[in-house]
């Protein structure tokens, strides 16, 4: 009779399992056919093992958060891993006591209440359980502090909560202190506690704890567990389980598509709201603190994303770089833009009436060069590329020398997917018909879309920094080293976008002294000129640019080098030292 207190817990758990079963079932059922086949194919391979390892490392131990912020990492780990161990050890305790693992699910949860007598290994197990409880309680304590004062965690702003979040969070806060008190009350009455519960029990004995009080505490503990389980699927804590699903799907090679689909939804719900993405975002410099990825994901879940927030993002990729859950934040945002603008895409009918012959050189070309809109705006870069190619005797076709269509990336960034496809088809045909084995580009924005969306088959796509380094290595050009000091700015689309960090640096080392910057390579800052942002005002851009320049120019270099015409164009209007594209530097240093 007095065992009714297990009901809130049990009902809560059943509700949780039913909801999860339906939710995950639907998500998986709605994956595309190909994705499902991929899962079936991969399920009995090493990938499953890798996914299990990563689930433990990230889902339980929170290694990535740890690396960025040890205190925050400890908080997440103590709650997740500690609770997990508490359940595992609870089951072992049940086994030692009853000789079987097939106990009712509430036995390990309310073990102290049910078992007052001796069993093999009792002392060790009880103390171990106490230790784990202490471990979790330290995490809960940190969570209280985090709510009160997020600054000690190095987080500028902590995330806002919805009613279900609040309910689940408060329940979570209460679960472990209540467990401590309930176990201590039992320990006070029956003397079956460990080092922690016995200490609290000594206090309880002073106030003469009665079986009624004991029962009330166990009820309270059970209710807080039940409330947490019922609230969980509708709250942020859903991420704990969704992340594990996401890790498995990611290991099975499922990729995010342009259109928002079931997999995108799984990613959205995997966000733990750890807040790591908030801090790295440069928009804070311009006092914009409502559009960071964590808020966008929340808006997607709550279906209240406004255009202004959606479009106010540089798509610089810094947040994606640091996200411990490895959510494809950039592409997710783009997929939302695709959804928002799908009713008005251009068809570029005029492309059909353009003269459509591909330029030729007579001989088999080595390279087809696409300058793109931005390079055409920076004639210095264009001239330098041509100069280097001529000097190295490269037989090339200049694809958009006179007239050319845009590469399509700016449209893609704005979510104009169907429109971008029209330009892609137009350019793609020309590139394939040229017969050149290499496509050379001098703009990382073009580079990104050529690599991701063009499907050029055998043709290798090269950014000029990669191609020029090859020319040097093959001895087709040689560079003279000067004594100027150079700092290099990694363009977002080239660095984080296409993973090219070393080639530009190799080239620069051959022409001068390369200085390092405080934030570079994967953590380089955005120049602020990004085409990814549609609503950022010019004054705000300038504020962000000034901050970036401060970091880059810290060591007083002679030259600020970059590898993107847009970065160059952006920086030129803000500094009084030379800003040069790597193409110009190479062209000048040729012997």
């Amino acid at each position: 009779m007095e065992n009714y207190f297990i009901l809130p817990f049990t009902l809560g758990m059943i509700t949780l399992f039913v909801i999860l079963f339906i939710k995950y079932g639907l998500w998986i059922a709605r994956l595309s056919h190909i994705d499902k086949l991929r899962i079936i194919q991969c399920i009995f391979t090493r990938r499953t093992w890798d996914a299990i390892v990563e689930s433990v490392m990230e889902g339980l131990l929170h290694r990535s958060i740890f690396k960025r912020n040890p205190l925050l990492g400890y908080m997440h780990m103590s709650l997740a891993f500690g609770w997990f161990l508490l359940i595992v050890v609870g089951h072992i305790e049940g086994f030692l006591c009853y000789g079987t693992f097939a106990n009712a699910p509430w036995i390990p949860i309310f073990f102290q209440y049910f078992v007052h007598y001796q069993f093999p290994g009792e002392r060790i197990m009880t103390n171990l359980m106490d230790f784990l409880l202490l471990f979790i309680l330290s995490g809960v304590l940190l969570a209280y502090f985090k709510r009160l004062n997020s600054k000690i965690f190095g987080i500028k702003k902590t995330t806002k909560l919805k009613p279900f979040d609040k309910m689940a969070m408060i329940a979570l806060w209460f679960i472990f202190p209540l467990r401590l008190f309930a176990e201590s009350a039992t320990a006070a009455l029956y003397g079956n506690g460990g080092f922690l519960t016995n200490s609290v029990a000594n206090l309880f004995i002073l106030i003469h704890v009665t079986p009624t009080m004991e029962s009330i505490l166990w009820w309270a503990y059970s209710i807080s567990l039940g409330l947490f389980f019922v609230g969980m699927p509708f709250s942020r804590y859903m991420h704990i389980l969704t992340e594990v699903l996401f890790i498995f799907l990611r290991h099975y090679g499922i990729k995010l598509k342009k259109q928002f689909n079931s997999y995108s939804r799984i990613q959205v719900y995997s966000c733990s709201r750890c807040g790591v993405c908030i801090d790295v975002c440069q928009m804070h410099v311009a006092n914009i603190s409502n559009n960071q990825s964590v808020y966008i994901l929340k808006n997607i879940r709550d279906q209240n994303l406004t255009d202004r927030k959606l479009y106010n993002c540089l798509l610089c990729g810094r947040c994606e770089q640091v996200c411990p859950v490895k959510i494809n934040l950039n592409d997710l945002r783009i997929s939302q833009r695709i959804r928002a603008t799908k009713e008005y895409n251009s068809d570029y009918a005029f492309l059909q009436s353009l003269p459509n012959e591909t330029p030729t050189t007579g001989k088999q070309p080595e390279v087809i060069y696409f300058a793109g809109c931005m390079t055409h705006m920076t004639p210095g870069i264009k001239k330098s590329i041509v100069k280097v190619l001529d000097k190295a005797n490269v037989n090339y076709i200049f694809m958009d020398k006179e007239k050319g269509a845009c590469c399509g990336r700016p449209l893609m960034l704005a979510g104009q997917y169907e429109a971008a496809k029209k330009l892609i088809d137009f350019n793609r045909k020309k590139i394939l018909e040229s017969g050149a084995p290499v496509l050379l580009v001098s703009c990382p924005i073009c580079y990104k879309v050529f690599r991701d969306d063009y499907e050029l088959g055998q043709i290798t796509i090269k950014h000029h920094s990669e191609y020029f380094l090859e020319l040097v290595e093959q001895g087709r050009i040689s560079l003279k080293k000067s004594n100027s000091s150079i700092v290099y700015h990694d363009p977002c689309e080239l660095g984080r976008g296409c993973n090219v960090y070393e080639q530009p640096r190799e080239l620069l080392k051959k022409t001068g002294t390369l200085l390092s910057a405080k934030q570079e390579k994967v953590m380089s800052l955005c120049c602020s000129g990004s085409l990814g942002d549609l609503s950022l005002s010019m004054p705000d851009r300038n504020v962000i640019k000034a901050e970036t320049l401060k970091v880059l120019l810290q060591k007083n270099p002679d030259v600020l080098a970059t590898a993107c015409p847009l970065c160059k164009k952006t920086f030129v209007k803000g500094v009084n030292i030379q800003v040069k594209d790597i193409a110009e530097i190479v062209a000048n240093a040729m012997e």
Partner: protein
Amino acid sequence: MRNFGFTTTKSRTIDYEKIDTRLISYILQNEPSFNACLSCGSCTAICSAGNLTSFNIRKLSLQIRLGDIENTKLEIDKCMLCGKCLLECPRGINTRNVIMLIKKGLNIIDKNEI
């Protein structure tokens, strides 16, 4: 009326009372920087779409102010959103956003939502 064998041209007066301001108000509401356009034409000189077609973004910006929605619909689809105009504009106007707002505004007008 008596036919004298000649016709008068249509009045070229702009009647401010009759201008269709739905599109321009929608744009200005969401991108106030568009107010600062001085019709210098820098954007048009550099325009990628203008290089391929007769697209003239400066002219279009005037036509939008005069409420010529039909022509805007035909023209705006030529822009490739490349962003060159953004870099060239001396008034720091967020031209790419203006263009997206034109597209969205036209879509909303089509659906009779403004």
